[in-house]
């Protein structure tokens, strides 16, 4: 089976570990070989959280620079930081709602210009899907559902070997009962946003 390599980056607390878990469960459900790794030591203290997910017949659980087929980012400046994981054939999905690091919020650093960032990513990769995932998550009922919005956009690309139905089933069975409806709605909004955009 062909290998698909996906990197997810986020800021601690944005819920990317749950997003990875949903994809892992959906892969188990689909009988697709999956291996993932994550670094989450100091995440709760405001650092960057990165997950690597490898679908198909590979043994490695991590992804080298330039070798991600897909980059999903929960935060626009982190998209730029992780861009060296991509090559010119990679597809990038990013939330456009910034979560500026503390140095920026107190005026000691400059946050990259979002329009310029998108132009650069478009120029360097095969496709960019960029939208405000926080807005859609809020629309779905909770700002916490940003992860599900982005999973929806990811499903729309059809690059990972998982069906939309299996990801939805994993959301139903692996996320908190009280959040399932919101999560499914968020997933759907993300899917539609990716269809419309870029």
């Amino acid at each position: 089976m062909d290998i698909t390599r996906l990197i997810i980056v986020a800021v601690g607390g944005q819920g990317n570990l749950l997003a990875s878990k949903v994809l892992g469960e959906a892969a188990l459900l689909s009988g697709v070989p999956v291996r993932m790794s994550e670094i989450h030591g100091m995440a709760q203290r405001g650092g960057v959280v990165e997950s690597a997910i490898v679908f198909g017949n590979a043994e490695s659980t991590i992804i080298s620079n330039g070798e991600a087929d897909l980059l999903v980012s929960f935060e626009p400046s982190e998209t730029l930081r992780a861009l060296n994981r991509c090559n010119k054939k990679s597809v990038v999905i990013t939330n456009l709602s910034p979560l500026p690091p503390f140095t920026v919020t107190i005026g000691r650093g400059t946050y990259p210009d979002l329009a310029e960032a998108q132009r650069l990513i478009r120029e360097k990769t095969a496709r960019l899907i960029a939208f405000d995932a926080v807005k859609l998550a809020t629309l779905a009922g909770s700002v916490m559902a940003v992860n599900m919005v982005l999973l929806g956009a990811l499903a729309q690309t059809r690059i990972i070997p998982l069906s939309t139905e299996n990801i939805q089933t994993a959301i139903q069975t692996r996320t908190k009962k009280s959040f399932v409806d919101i999560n499914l709605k968020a997933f759907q909004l993300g899917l539609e946003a990716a269809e419309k955009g870029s």
Partner: protein
Amino acid sequence: MHKLLTNEPGAKMLLLGNESIARGAIEAGVSFTSTYPGTPSSEISLNFFQISKESDLYFEYSTNEKVALEVAAAAANSGVRSMCIMKHVGMNVAADTLMTLAYVGTKAGLVILTADDPFMFSSQNEQDNRYYGKLSGLTILEPSSVSEAKEMTATAFAISEELQEPVILRTTTRINHSTAVVELGEIKERKTKGDFRKDPFNYVTVPAVSRKLHEKLLNNIRKAEALSGLSPFNFIKGSGNLGIICNGVSYNYVQDAVADLHLTDQVKILRIGFSHPMPEKTIKAFLKDCRKVLVVEEGEPYMEESVKAFAQEAGLTMPIAGKSDALFSRLFEYDPAMVRKNIAAYFDIPYLSAQPVDTSDIPEIPQRPPNLCAGCSHRATFYAIKQAAKGMETIYPNDIGCYTLGFLPPLSMGDFLICMGSSAGTACGFSQVTDKKVIALIGDSTFFHSGIPGLINAVFNNHDYTLVILDNRTTAMTGHQPNPGVDMDELNFEGYNQVSIEKLVTAMGVGHVSVIRPYNLKKSISAIKEAIEYKGVSVIIAKEKCTLYAKSLKQLKDKAFYVTDKCKNHRDCINELACPAFFIQDEKVKINPSLCVGCAVCAQVCPENAILPLKK
């Protein structure tokens, strides 16, 4: 029911490496488990802790790794299958026990897990604990994948019983924190009660006994060598006259590289999973038909040294390489592309690497370093210490925990750090040879772990320093594990006692002991002033619950503050506290109410009294 107790042999489950290891132990009928928490091993013990609350599995958070190993060694020598879990540097703490426990051996299976951390994602060094196998003479097993981790853990108990010696299971972060699908096996029944049979001439390590026991250990190493030679964990894959010897996660990268480079009919791979003792005959036989050999292992050239020695003994002269400036480094962790590149280079295989996008024209991205949380009481304590010590020349030996982050500006509280407990010890030396005021910083759990001997030393030898115990009522950094100072009743856990740090340090003979509530800055500053003026050893206990922990216990006041119009933009709040709840908007200081926990420390720092609680 805990998911790792699922009794459905053959069922498939998506598991974290650490869950897979815990499940392997459960399947092997482990009955007694102990640990001191440490990343990347922590989730193994967290699962044991949870399982112990709903089954007859015994689990304890011990005060440090040495104690944890002693506790487990006694249980295992009483006939109960036991496991002891620690991070790699924890093995140094347990090493005194380990070295002679290898002489004494074990009756029931005893597995010691050490989780190494190449690249130091959350550690102070990247030591390669395979050398503990050589040093102690004990067997080392190293899994390459999440599912193999389960299998090896279970087998480790059997090997331990066969050799009557503890077995070391050595993982790296990318095993502990990887996730994959694992097939469940049968769960063996737990035998939770044992009996200790007296046998002092084999158990009491006086010199006359130990001379005999060392001989026994050497015999056991020979038996282990035979097991290593027959072990299915040491296997050969593929054929060809180019040889690769690898272990752990490197095996994954090697397999992917060999497939990517279309070398499957030219390269044979020897995967070493039983790495101490090294399988001498297997390696010699493997080398014989190789034209060239590459050793791929993260960390130190542990296997490479043995392989080269075996080749010399066998009179083999083919090139054997591994660590060198041109090939693999001893630094950090490996990745698939690096391994592919080095295999291609060493075996002269043409290869085009993937081209990462050019990032030279990407604007500079602001860093996102980890920071003390909004409202963290450590920040308040650090600020109070700085105020109390204003104008003094100071040295701040720091220790291991969240508060280590205090070394970053603007707090800049942390001048020297080696390992767990080192603040209390190093402070003695600094205070003796310098004329500066030494103020050492240590967390509650770290104090119990290994700060106590340093403090007793300071009292006995009459050193002059202040030890600030940052008592946030939990072991925060590794995920809020209990420690001896924690109120377990509050967590609804029965059967524990609580140790009072205040009574403890007073009983040690510390001349000046005071307890502060760091959110009250004025009182804290004056108490700290008194303590640092005291000649001799003084202790400040800064007592306030970790905000994340308080939040999880639903104890946060949840009363956010805001900046009123009285603000004159001195920005002392931002420049001196750097609490992440602050932000600047239109040149004005603001507080993010969803991050603010209402600690009110900034309100006390503001020279205009411009920060007030939000009215609900």
